[in-house]
């Protein structure tokens, strides 16, 4: 009797243990054999007509969703109402950690909203390994529920750069989903109170730095080194124009030895001297908002960031008379144009997705008036024509940044094959800024590291 009891208990224990392992339901894939299942199927072969089943959408839960909870659900429902295709939504702040493991097992979402330039670099890896579906035909598709085509709505300046066409072959792999001008944020109230002008050139910037120092205010801070990507893109563009920008982002030979290249490094190195010294100590995932707080408490004047900053800091304490201001990066010479980088979040389809056709319909649908309006409620602005007239509040000022003569910068560093020991663009170009500020690294060392890495990056470009 006793033995039977213990046997029962033991089997109950083992069953409960095993039940834990069975948690991940095997997705029903039987109706679309070519997709993702076997580990050898190289994506491009998997575009035959597939039945429009439910599609799986994996989207990054960002500040927009916080501003207007339920934003994505509403869009998915609107899509289902229009096309009858059900959407399974995965909405996570740490999307890479959630969808990453199942994708390694060959189970891909149908649509992914995840931008390039994130620390985990998932989107970059999909570009490098050519695991994205070609969605060029989405541009000519008619938007579900409307008569307009996608390309008639999307701003033409947002398509065709290497942020959407990573291989430079005229084919689009990533659709531009949200865009947000990046610039320098400051306390407009403080500038008014002190009678300071927002600098138009870098020389004026340094002058202002001295003036502010006299008042015990540092000129500059940054949330984390990751925010230097938009900064560096805009800086390269304003220093050398589109030609230099294209050369630099494709690591052209000798590009960092040109006067323009040197000027970029000089400006960042000088800015490091004017950076509030507490910045690197707080430039991590836990404390970055403390660096943003420096702007609100008048301990630093400028902070590179995107339009989501006021929302992110909405609850933070602030000095009297605080008012958000945002400007483009100053010009190099008097009379020159400043620049602001358009941070672009992309939406894309893994080539291993089960329902590529339905997924394409979804990508087309996000440009419909209905979807655009829903996204706008969360402050998420899509690159569609005429969007600027629909904006409200602070966003009007932020998105008018290009009206005052600043160049709009779009594009990213070109993808290169991963090489052991080489490091990512962020590790090579941006992360060392912390050490520049704290004085652990000299400018010359930083530049020579970049040059050495650039040579390797160029040699390993995905598209030569």
């Amino acid at each position, binding site marked *: 009797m006793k*033995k039977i009891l*213990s*046997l029962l208990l*033991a*089997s109950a*224990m*083992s069953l409960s*243990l*095993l039940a834990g*392992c069975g948690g991940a339901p095997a997705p029903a894939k039987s109706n679309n054999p070519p997709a993702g299942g076997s*580990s*050898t*199927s*190289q994506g491009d072969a998997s575009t035959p007509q597939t039945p429009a089943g439910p599609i799986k959408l994996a989207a990054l839960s960002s500040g927009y969703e916080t501003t207007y909870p339920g934003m994505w659900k509403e869009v998915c429902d609107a899509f289902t109402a229009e096309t009858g295709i059900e959407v399974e939504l995965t909405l996570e702040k740490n999307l890479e950690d959630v969808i*990453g493991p199942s*994708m*390694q097992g*060959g189970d891909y979402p149908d649509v992914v909203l995840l931008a390039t330039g994130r*620390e*985990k*670099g*998932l989107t*970059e*890896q*999909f570009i*490098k*390994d050519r*695991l994205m579906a070609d969605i060029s035909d989405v541009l000519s598709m008619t938007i579900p529920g409307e008569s307009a085509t996608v390309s008639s709505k999307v701003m033409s300046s947002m398509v065709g750069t290497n942020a959407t066409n990573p291989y430079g072959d005229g084919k689009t792999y990533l659709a531009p989903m949200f865009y947000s001008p990046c610039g320098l944020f400051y306390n407009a109230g403080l500038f008014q109170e002190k009678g300071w002008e927002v600098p138009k050139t870098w020389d004026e910037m340094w002058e202002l730095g001295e003036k502010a120092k006299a008042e015990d205010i540092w000129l500059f801070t940054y949330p*984390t*080194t990751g925010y230097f990507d938009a900064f560096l893109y805009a800086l390269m563009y304003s220093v050398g124009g589109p030609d230099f920008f294209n050369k630099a982002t494709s690591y052209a030979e000798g590009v960092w030895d040109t006067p323009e290249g040197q000027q970029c490094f000089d400006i960042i190195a000088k800015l490091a001297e004017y950076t509030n*010294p*507490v910045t*690197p*100590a*707080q*430039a*991590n*995932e*836990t*404390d970055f908002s*403390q660096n943003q707080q420096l702007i609100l408490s008048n301990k630093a004047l400028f902070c590179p960031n995107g339009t989501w900053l006021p929302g992110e800091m909405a609850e933070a304490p602030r000095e009297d008379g605080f008012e958000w201001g945002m400007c483009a990066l100053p010009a190099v010479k008097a009379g020159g144009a400043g620049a602001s980088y358009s941070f672009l979040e992309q939406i894309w389809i893994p080539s*291993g997705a089960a329902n590529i056709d339905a997924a394409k319909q979804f990508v087309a649908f996000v440009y419909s008036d209905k979807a655009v309006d829903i996204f706008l409620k969360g402050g998420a602005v899509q690159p569609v024509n005429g969007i600027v007239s629909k904006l409200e509040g602070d966003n009007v000022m932020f998105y008018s940044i290009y009206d005052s003569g600043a160049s709009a910068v779009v594009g990213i560093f070109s993808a290169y094959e*991963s*090489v*052991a*020991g*080489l*490091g*990512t663009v962020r*590790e090579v170009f941006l*992360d*060392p800024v*912390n*050490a520049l500020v*704290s004085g*652990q690294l000299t400018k010359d060392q930083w530049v020579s590291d970049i040059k050495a890495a650039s040579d390797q990056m160029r040699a390993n470009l995905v598209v030569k």
Partner: protein
Amino acid sequence: MRSKGRSRFIALCVAPAAILFFLFMVMPTVNVFRMSLFERGAYSPTETFVGMSNFKILFKDTKFITSMQNTILLIVTVTIITFFFAIVFAAILTREKIKGQNFFRIVFYIPNILSIVVIAGIFSAIYKPDTTGMLNNIFTFFAGRNIEILWKTQPMVIVSIIIAMVWQAIGYYMVMYMASMSAVPASLYESAGLDGAGRLTQFFQLTLPLIWTNIRTTLTFFIISTINMAFLFVKSMVAPGMSDVGLSFMYAQKDAGLYGYSMAAGVVIFLFSFLLSALVNKVTQREVLEM
């Protein structure tokens, strides 16, 4: 007949654990070794055999060498400091009559049940770089002038991690030693006292030798957990690339699209921790004393 049924029963009881151990420990470990010989992206279905080339590059990669140096530095310093304080506190709390013993026991233990995110949050207040930070504030109070130590950046970053890790680990080990110390019979101390042994002599001649087995076991345990904890602390507390440890280097390589390379780093760390525990086990071997 009886013994046959019995062994069948034992096999049944052990089977679930054995199967799970094989599935989730042995298989992945073997896979790590296998993948370290290949190169592939984390999401790419294709892989290329590259032989030992990952390891060759790894041992020349200055970033990897620095991160292993950081790991070793953390293991050595955190272990020494934690064990010193844990043993001393345990001795004080078990042997001396102190008011609020239980209170201290709980207070020291609390850090151990906090999640790493909470600890990172607590230490972001403690290490705040201006004078509003707790540590800087205390120093300012005693120094009589403004002290603004930039804790979480170079060169203080490794010190900040050590302090946080020690703070987190002391309580757990203290409670362990308290348990084994209270198992030492009081009569031993009494007779030692009669023989004229002072408190310190009692501690070194009686307490330490009698709990040595416990110390040995926890030491091995601690070294392995430090390798993991160092990664969590570095990940959640400081800026990327500022003071990488072995495991954070491994993760960064995966994110850069070098799955095989990161697995090679994993293999090295695995062997390193394995050898280190074996070494510690060997070095700390003593004749077991019976009470």
